[in-house]
């Protein structure tokens, strides 16, 4: 009886059974919390021992008129776009240099650039706050030999976000370099030979051969980079905790502070729903542009 049952539905059933464990995990830990957050965003819930109170769209209305929330969106977008694009441009340049067959110590340099990416965020951020400490930090101790008052880095409203972006780029660069290196090695050498025969110089080869060939990789790096940078959290929590004066308060930190430190779960859920929508819109636009996840991309 079992035999005939399995024979008929073998493929479908096997697929279902193999997908079941991960599906269960996804439903319990991803989909259920998302739906729950949607529901909770319509409630006011400020005390863990009391029942949530239904308030409709009040949380959203409050958020959209909240200067702190708007600021956090602005900070997040500034951070995400700067870090993604700068790390992509630098990554392509450095990867092109590292791809040069005549470069000495190639493996050493590749390792060097990849190191920040594999360093845990906590460790990297801790090292940065010590290095960039305005009074006893290594960077300012060196800088004082050249300028009388070096920046306060993480503590100066004019510098804090820039310093944080620098940290983000530094950590992201290794990843873009590795991806670009792999992609560069896939460009057939004939393309370069033909370009050289046509009399193109190095810059022209880079512009007319390398860059067009890198387009699919670049689009993928933009997608991944933006999604990753949009959810930046741990390194901000450790370095500036959103300060000074809110200039580095990214939206995930805003959510964390209000939901988990001040226990405003309704408001926190509303923020997470807004982040969810924003990331979904970015992803859809990029899917349209890149066709990410389709067969063409895999090839």
């Amino acid at each position, binding site marked *: 009886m079992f*035999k005939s049952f399995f024979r008929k539905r073998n493929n479908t059933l096997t697929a279902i059974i193999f997908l079941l464990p991960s599906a269960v995990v996804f439903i319990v830990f991803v989909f259920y919390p998302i739906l729950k957050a949607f529901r909770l965003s319509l409630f006011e819930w400020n005390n863990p*021992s009391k029942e949530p109170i239904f308030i409709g769209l009040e949380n959203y209305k409050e958020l959209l008129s909240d200067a702190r929330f708007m600021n956090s969106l602005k900070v997040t977008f500034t951070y995400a776009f700067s870090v993604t694009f700068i790390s992509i441009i630098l990554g392509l340049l450095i990867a092109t240099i590292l791809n040069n067959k005549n470069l000495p110590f190639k493996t050493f340099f590749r390792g060097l650039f990849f190191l920040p990416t594999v360093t845990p965020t906590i460790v990297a951020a801790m090292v940065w706050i010590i290095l960039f400490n305005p*009074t*006893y930090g290594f960077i300012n101790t060196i800088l004082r030999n050249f300028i009388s008052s070096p920046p306060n880095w993480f503590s100066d*409203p004019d510098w804090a976000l820039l310093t944080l972006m620098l940290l983000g780029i530094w950590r992201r660069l290794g990843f873009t370099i590795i991806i670009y290196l792999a992609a560069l090695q896939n460009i057939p050498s004939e393309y370069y030979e033909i370009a050289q025969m046509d009399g193109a110089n190095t810059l022209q080869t880079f512009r007319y051969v390398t860059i067009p060939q890198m387009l699919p990789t670049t689009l993928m790096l933009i997608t991944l980079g933006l999604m990753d940078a949009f959810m930046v959290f741990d390194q901000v929590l450790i370095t500036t905790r959103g*300060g000074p004066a809110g200039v580095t308060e990214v939206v995930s930190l805003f959510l964390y502070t209000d939901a988990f430190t001040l226990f405003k779960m309704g408001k926190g859920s509303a923020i997470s729903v807004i982040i969810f929508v924003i990331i979904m819109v970015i992803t859809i636009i990029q899917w349209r542009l890149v066709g990410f996840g389709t067969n063409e991309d895999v090839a």
Partner: protein
Amino acid sequence: MYKKNRFLWLVLIIIAFVFSACQPTTPAEEVEQPQSEQVEEEVVEPVQITFWHQYDKANAEMLETLVSEFNHANPDIQVEVVVQPSYDEYKTLLQTSILSDTLPDVVTVDLIWVPWLVSTNSVEPLDAYISGDSDFDIEDFYSLQLEYDVIDGNRFALPMSANNMQVIWNKDLFERAGMDPEIPPTTWEEMQAYAEQCQDIDNGVIGFEYYTQPTGEGITWQFQVWLWAAGGEFLNADNTKAAFNTEEGLEALTYVSDMLQGNGSIPGPWGAFGEGKACMQLDGSWLFGYRKDAPFDWGVALVPAPEGGVSATNTGGERVLMFANSEKKEAAWKFMKYLTSSEIQLKWDMATGFMPIRKSVGENSEYLSWINETEPRMLPFVEGMQYAHTRPATPLYNEISDAFSREIQNAFLGLSTPAEALEAAEKAVNEILAQ
């Protein structure tokens, strides 16, 4: 055939796995019942209680020693210590633990959290334990910070440590700046003059280290010292309105903000003093736990008073309490009683520099001779207790403090004038209080 069997096994294993993961654990009663009957004949299992605290460095080590002494003296109870070193994350953890019903048995927390914790209905009232325990004398505790622990007539916590903040100065840096290393400032004017004289921007030395970031209770609780010294108040008497947007409040904020514009100080992350890069700062008496072996010479002085005013300080401390859902309340009470006993408190205070919470410690001859002979730098903290103010005991305090610090910080950083910052802070605080 063989293949199919293997496939079937796989299915069964997966199903078994999923179901075993979904199985509820055996209810506690079923397990405990047979055990309690067998207790007489078998070895007694010690009662395990979990204890969270937020003390760090040498203070945490001392507490660890005291707990292991307790475990040693009470073989029937085993206290497991978990350190929660981050102030903000500790609060987050407590909140999520309330929701998920995973609270420990006993905790120490910042006293300012007690009203908020009590408002979550998760704290066990202690009145019955105190009245039922003939050898526990609640009258022996100082009453200064009583309002945090007694809410609506019930006592929810016991003092574990008390403190206040005074000025600590680096004598080596004073000397290097050509100043008398033994003379600390006594007025606001002097303090600023000393700070400007002592600061050495080229070498990264700041005159007076203010707590300017990150936002939160660190900023609020340090600024309140200057607010109170100027004669201001934080909230009104019944904690329903902000009371700091006054002439006194403006005087305090103007004073601090001016200094922070390079006139004796600059904004920065906390910690320059410990690195020998700040001449002065406000710090609490708990500093004896980690400053004893500093590579520089330091002294403690009363917080300077403004012209014609008096010194002021902020008194804080930690409380020990147990949670209502603990299943080992008797053991928990025994442990709380141990931690707050005169004998343990005496050891604790002399090792850490915390202020006595019990009269029998504060008036103890051993303690007094320790202060006068071994550690006279404790004296300003003892003397400062008479100028100590307490923060308002309201469950909304955390939110108020967070909002207040955000606005005040703008003045510290020179992004808004002190008057603007105070007005914005007043508006934000009143909005929270109007909830």
